[in-house]
């Protein structure tokens, strides 16, 4: 039998001034895993996390931590470890005092407090800085202190609120890896809120993409990227070309769709002839033939190169079709060189394998 998830939400709703910031959210975070709530600002992800922490009271729905309903339990009795965006260290306490705070609030004996503080600081490699004040620390060090402070009380779950947003790129990546390793080692169930898709994909076992107070899709990072179920997810995680059109032919479990601007693509869909669909196509799926028209059939189109942008590892090629409709392709660079012949104005044939066509749900708007 599967154990119950460590964090469970059922039908959670929170409205501010009549606007539903969180509109019926349900999900679970399995023991020992990291789940990321990912979405644009204002999608309700932070409110969801604050409700789990107990800092915001839901209007409806139930929240359980480790199988215990906590919806009506005050913050200080929920035993959650939370990492705040700007670390929120206590400015009047030194590093040791910051880490000891949670233990002191729990009435842990003095000798044990000292030992646990040292252990927690060793865990984040800051045991030498116990006497420093927060303002004497770098951003990365403050982050580690905040992490040690949250972990030392052995919380039931760990909540990370945009934890790496304030760090510069190099340090952010280092801290992400470190946090992930630490989380694995301790096996602590973790919920992270972020607007950074790369961060969500790198760190999480599962990603929940949120939009307008609802979860749009919840899946593993690979599934979210490879099989987005909605146009919003396909556009928010990475980039996608969207082809909108009608089914013109059916054959078994496959169908041929013709987009409104005349591209024919084959899709795996049970939709009937005449039905409207939206297909998302990743730019990196698109191959470019410089020789001009080399074949006919679906999943290919004649284009002209509009713009070429070199990005080091990849080259972004902005294509234009006969009618001016844009199509974006991303090609990997061999040995850092742009593929020969990719110059604006050149005619190229764009084609892609049919398994890269993904039918997505259109926005309800």
């Amino acid at each position, binding site marked *: 039998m599967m154990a119950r998830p460590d964090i469970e939400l059922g039908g959670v709703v929170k409205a501010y001034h009549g606007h539903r910031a969180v509109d019926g959210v349900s999900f679970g975070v399995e023991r020992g895993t990291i789940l990321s709530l990912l979405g644009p600002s204002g999608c309700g992800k932070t409110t969801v996390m604050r409700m789990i922490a*107990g*800092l915001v009271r839901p209007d409806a729905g139930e929240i359980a931590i480790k199988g215990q309903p906590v919806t009506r339990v005050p913050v*200080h009795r929920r035993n*959650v470890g939370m990492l705040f965006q700007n670390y*929120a260290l*206590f400015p*009047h306490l030194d590093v040791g005092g910051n880490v000891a*705070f949670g233990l002191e609030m729990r009435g842990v004996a003095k000798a044990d407090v000292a030992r646990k503080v040292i252990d927690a600081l060793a865990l984040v490699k800051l045991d030498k800085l116990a006497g420093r004040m927060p303002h004497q620390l770098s951003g990365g060090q403050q982050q580690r202190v905040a992490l040690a402070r949250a972990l030392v*009380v052995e919380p039931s779950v760990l909540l990370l609120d945009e934890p790496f947003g304030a760090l510069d790129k190099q340090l952010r990546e280092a801290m992400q890896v470190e946090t992930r390793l630490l989380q694995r080692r301790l096996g602590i169930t973790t919920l992270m809120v972020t607007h950074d898709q790369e961060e969500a994909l790198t760190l999480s076992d599962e990603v929940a993409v949120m939009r307008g107070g609802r979860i749009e899709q919840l899946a593993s990072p690979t599934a979210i990227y490879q099989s987005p179920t909605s146009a919003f997810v396909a556009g928010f995680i990475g980039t996608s070309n969207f082809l909108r059109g009608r089914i013109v032919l059916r054959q078994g479990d496959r169908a041929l769709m013709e987009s409104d601007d005349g591209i024919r693509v084959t899709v795996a869909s049970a939709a009937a002839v005449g039905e409207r669909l939206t297909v998302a196509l990743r730019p990196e799926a698109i191959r470019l033939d410089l020789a001009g028209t080399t074949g006919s059939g679906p999943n290919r189109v004649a284009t002209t190169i509009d713009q070429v942008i070199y990005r080091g590892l990849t080259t972004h090629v902005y294509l234009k079709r006969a009618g001016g409709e844009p199509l974006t392709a991303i090609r990997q660079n061999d040995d850092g060189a742009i593929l020969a012949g990719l110059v604006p104005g050149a005619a190229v044939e764009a084609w892609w394998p049919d398994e890269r066509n993904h039918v997505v749900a259109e926005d309800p708007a």
Partner: protein
Amino acid sequence: MENRLGAAALPVYLAAGLISLFLLVPLLLPIALSVSDTPFVVFPPQGFTLRWYVAVLGERDFTDSLTFSLILSSLAALGAMVLGTPTAIGLTRHAFPGRDLIRSLVLSPLVFPSLVTGIALLRFFSSIGSHDALVNLVIGHVLVTVPYVVRTVSASLIMLDPAIEEAARTLGASRWRTFWHVTRPQIVPGLVAGGIFAFVTSFDNYAISMWLFDAENVPLPLTMFSLISRMFDPGIAAIASLMILLSLVLVLVVERVTGLQKAMSL
């Protein structure tokens, strides 16, 4: 230090110097007069003596009144701190209907003529039969000094990141323990500054005191006023100098604790 003013430097320094002079001369004058070795206040002062200070400190009217004022102002400052701190927390941390109205009411003694407040209080106290002058004076002074504490404590609270209190709550601290262990240490500088402003304001108050004092309870400003009308020697300048000194010490304390600019801002 780099001079960013360039060609405009001279006029700016000149203006700054003149303004400083304008502010300082009235304060320095009594000090100069107070050491004049003459039986009357004369200008320019002649000679040097501290005997007026000795004389003033031997004057019962003055010392009794000084003691009374120190007690009165301490109680007023204490009252203002006790009432002002929760008021500031309520006004900055909680949104509720009528908050702006209440804030305006609490801060209104800053702009309301205290002479009028004094008369109103006098009528109020006599109508409820409160005849203890010390109690009446403390209440009146708390009323006009509370805004200072509310302002300085609010300023400290606004600078305190609410996430810090939330962090304390997630770490297992109840609301009260969060206030005591996290919020309180952050607002102490503002509270001390507000308390000192309250003390100085109360110590200096004339307009309220003149309605509420009685023969046994005479605050210092009232005593000084009556001394001026019957004293012609530099002793009166010595009293003024002592009060300037006291204010200066308190201002320096505020500067050390919070920084004046920070304490005054809101």
